[in-house]
């Protein structure tokens, strides 16, 4: 009988983390940007059917990067969690914090107990009644949670994109300003840097954009497509 190799827990965790990080960095980025009227989500995603950004509940949305089947699984679980909770208690009892905790426990358990960690990074965001009450939680493959303020970038070239957002983001942006900033940041990735000529342009039909609109009643999530999106992206005169 062969003796199994000894691998230190430290090494094992490090290997898993490296594996997950590599998987996540391969995909295109998603950015989440808070603005005066809510929270906008944007990603370069030519598919009309396979979404990276989704509605979870009245005021809560979900964005993810990484392996589609894994984050889709989490998304479905999140919708079930929210709908069961909202139906058995009240719609106001569904919060991003509760969902982020459940996701954190789930991702943490998968990371430690299963041989292959989930290669995903997700954002759970909730729009408040005032900008100060907005909540943005970023969760990584190992179940760690960060409470973010203002903006988040995740996926491929996330650092460059976040740096770009950090330079220009400030509280009180309009939707058009926030969206233009998001798209410019998405274009400031490794590919653009390699070409050495500033951010690459991304056409409206290559974008998946959605917003949690503070002003809406009940369900605040809306996808922005077609002429609405093109109008917001057009430079203001």
């Amino acid at each position: 009988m062969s003796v199994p190799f000894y691998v230190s827990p430290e090494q094992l965790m490090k290997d898993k983390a490296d594996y997950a990080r590599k998987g996540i960095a391969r995909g295109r980025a998603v950015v989440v940007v808070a603005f005066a009227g809510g929270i906008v989500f944007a990603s370069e995603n030519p598919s009309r059917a396979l979404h990276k950004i989704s509605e979870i509940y009245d005021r809560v949305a979900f964005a993810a990067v990484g392996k589609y089947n894994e984050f889709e699984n989490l998304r479905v679980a999140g919708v079930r969690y929210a709908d069961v909770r909202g139906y058995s208690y009240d719609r106001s009892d569904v919060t991003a914090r509760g969902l982020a905790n459940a996701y954190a426990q789930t991702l943490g358990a998968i990371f430690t107990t299963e041989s292959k960690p989930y290669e995903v990074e997700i954002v759970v965001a909730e729009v408040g009644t005032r900008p100060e009450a907005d909540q943005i939680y970023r969760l990584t493959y190992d179940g760690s949670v960060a409470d973010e303020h203002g903006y988040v970038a995740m996926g491929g070239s996330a650092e460059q994109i976040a740096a770009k957002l950090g330079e220009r983001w400030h509280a009180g942006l309009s939707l058009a300003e926030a969206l233009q900033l998001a798209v410019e940041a998405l274009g400031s990735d490794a590919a653009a840097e390699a070409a050495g000529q500033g951010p690459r342009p991304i056409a409206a039909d290559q974008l998946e954009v959605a917003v949690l609109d503070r002003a809406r009643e009940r369900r605040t999530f809306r996808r922005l497509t077609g002429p609405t999106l093109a109008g917001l992206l057009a430079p203001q005169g």
Partner: protein
Amino acid sequence: MNHTSDQSGRLPAAFLRPGSSSFTDFVREYSPQLLPAGRALPAGALPGGGPGNGEAPHATTIVALVFADGVVMAGDRRATAGPMIAQRDIKKVFQTDEHSCAGIAGVAGLAVEMIRLFQVELEHFEKLEGTLMSFEGKANRLSTMIRGNLGMAMQGLAVVPLFAGYDLDAGRGRIVGYDVTGGRSEERDHHTVGSGSIFARGALKKLYRPGMDEAETVRVAVEALWDAADDDSATGGPDLLRKIWPVVAVVTAAGFRQVPDAELEPVVEAVVAGRRGNPGGNPGITTTGGEA
């Protein structure tokens, strides 16, 4: 009840399992006690005593009319428990999703719960599938829910909704009526349910014309509710003292809209004025006076 998470705070395995896009189907497996049909049914009738002999409050008349751009649904505001008025401002017409609404007649408590479940059902499907449920799909889901209540209905706790909406595929307003067993039938121009429905239906027959605009249709709906309230003690007329108006919903291609009270008040007042000294109303009234 263990329906939020297990002890570790992890999402329960059932949440992560691939499965149906139906909320009801999911909950039936995961936590059946949450569903109206998941409860054991005690034998016998409701216990008596109290106002109205302990009868559960009933909600009554709903009318729905197809018009040029979609569909209008209106409901009175009275809930009765036997001979007593249980509530003066109950809401019986609900938005069920962006392009549909439902009105309820029957036992108010069960009906409101059924509609709440139906709302989650439609929204759940929409979120999981990333696409809207077809009008036929929605009408069939509601059928299934009524059928699930058949046991209660046999004990006298019947619920009969009326479903209406804008069918985006067909490009028109549609109305679906139900019977207590869940049998559904599409109604062409207008339909009514509830205890005052026979009177409302008579009014609609005389006042309805195909191709009316929104303002006229709202006016006709209010007229029909007036006629129902005039002859049926369980249907409430507009309460001028308390300023309680019917709930009127309009569903068009642009989505659901509940007519605000400020807009409805002049319509109701015009209807009341038209009936002064002429309680039967004038069948020719509908072209003017409805606009706010």
